[in-house]
């Protein structure tokens, strides 16, 4: 499990809280990045424990409290993606860089498919309208997740203790 250092924890805090303010385009790219979704993906790929699950739950509930009832669909699909992905990773996943990137795209694809299914049934949305609406968020969420994954998981100093050799 990859651990976060203090600065990363602080940045994570800002990443969750700053997008609630309008005009913060540099953080959520004009409303196209969903921080809770990105954090779910990152936590799933870096390993989950009770603290992280609690942090995710708090973030999702906090965002839900700022929205109206239509956001329950989004909330449910996130829970569904989280549970199914956690199960898949635990049972079948072989961890490497390429698999991680493929998995990010798969998570996003599943998440948007569940939402499409729900919106189609409940609000009868047009498929092409939906596609036009989610294309940019899909791309932005994928890019931000991949960049953050690289920054946190793949560009840190090795944590293995140095081995002492005697000649």
């Amino acid at each position, binding site marked *: 499990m990859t651990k976060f250092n203090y600065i990363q924890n602080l940045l994570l805090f800002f990443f969750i809280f700053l997008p609630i303010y309008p005009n913060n385009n540099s953080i959520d790219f004009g*409303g196209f990045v969903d921080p809770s979704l990105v954090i779910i993906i990152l936590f799933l790929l870096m390993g989950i424990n009770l603290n992280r699950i609690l942090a995710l739950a708090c973030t999702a509930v906090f965002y839900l409290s700022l*929205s109206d009832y*239509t956001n329950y669909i989004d909330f449910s699909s996130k829970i569904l993606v989280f549970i199914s992905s956690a199960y898949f990773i635990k049972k079948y996943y072989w961890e490497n860089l390429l698999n991680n990137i493929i998995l990010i795209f798969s998570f996003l694809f599943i998440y948007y498919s569940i939402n499409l299914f729900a919106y189609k049934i409940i609000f009868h*949305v047009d498929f092409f*309208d939906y596609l036009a609406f*989610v294309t940019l968020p899909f791309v932005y969420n994928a890019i931000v997740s991949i960049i953050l994954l690289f920054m946190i998981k793949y560009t840190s100093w090795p944590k293995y203790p140095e081995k002492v050799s005697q000649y």
Partner: protein
Amino acid sequence: MISKRKIKSLLLIILISTVVIIFFILNLNFYFSDFLVSKLSYTNNISAPNSSLTAEIHNSKFDSKIYQSTLKENEELKKILKLQNQSRFSLITAEMTIKSPTIFSSTAYANRGKKSGVVTNLIVINSEGLVGKIENVYDDYSEIIFPYNPRFNLLVFVGENKVPGILKGDGISSFIHYIPSESEINIGDPVHLADNVNPNYINFQIGDVSEVRNEGGFLRIKIKSLLNPNAIKFISIIKNDKI
């Protein structure tokens, strides 16, 4: 007498040195770059970057960005002021302070509530178009729903003949419904805000017709150039008691 072998090696040396000289000439810019000048030249102190000046330039750039954003904000406020002076309705100017950051969410909060005279169902606009509608009002703040919210519905007039229709949201986009299919609506027709008392009450254009489809005896009309409400800061809430 020079042997053939020596001539060969001499030629080889000449060839290699020519190649090396050409390489150096071609890369001359690099070798005379700032790095070498600063390290080797006696004018080191003169040409070296002055740290205090560099810091000042950085600060100036930072200040300039702040001024630019203030200017943008000022322009936005001026437009709202112009709208307030020219329009035939009274406005409550507010600031959109919080929005839900999830993609499918379509709600935000404004910093004006019951104390400022805001009531439910008032229309929220910006100098550039329709922002949404007041859904819930509290003492000091109110909740706005955007036009693509499924709970959003608003009477609008379409085209030059001002055909009434209902602007509705479906969670991801908004469209106009309940216009009989016999109505003459063309692509590019303007869409205006409406009131059920007097058709000329509010003459505020919110967009143009981009697509017209027949669905079960009614037209389903899509609008283009609707405002993206996610990146708005200042808003105006229309109060219906000026006239």
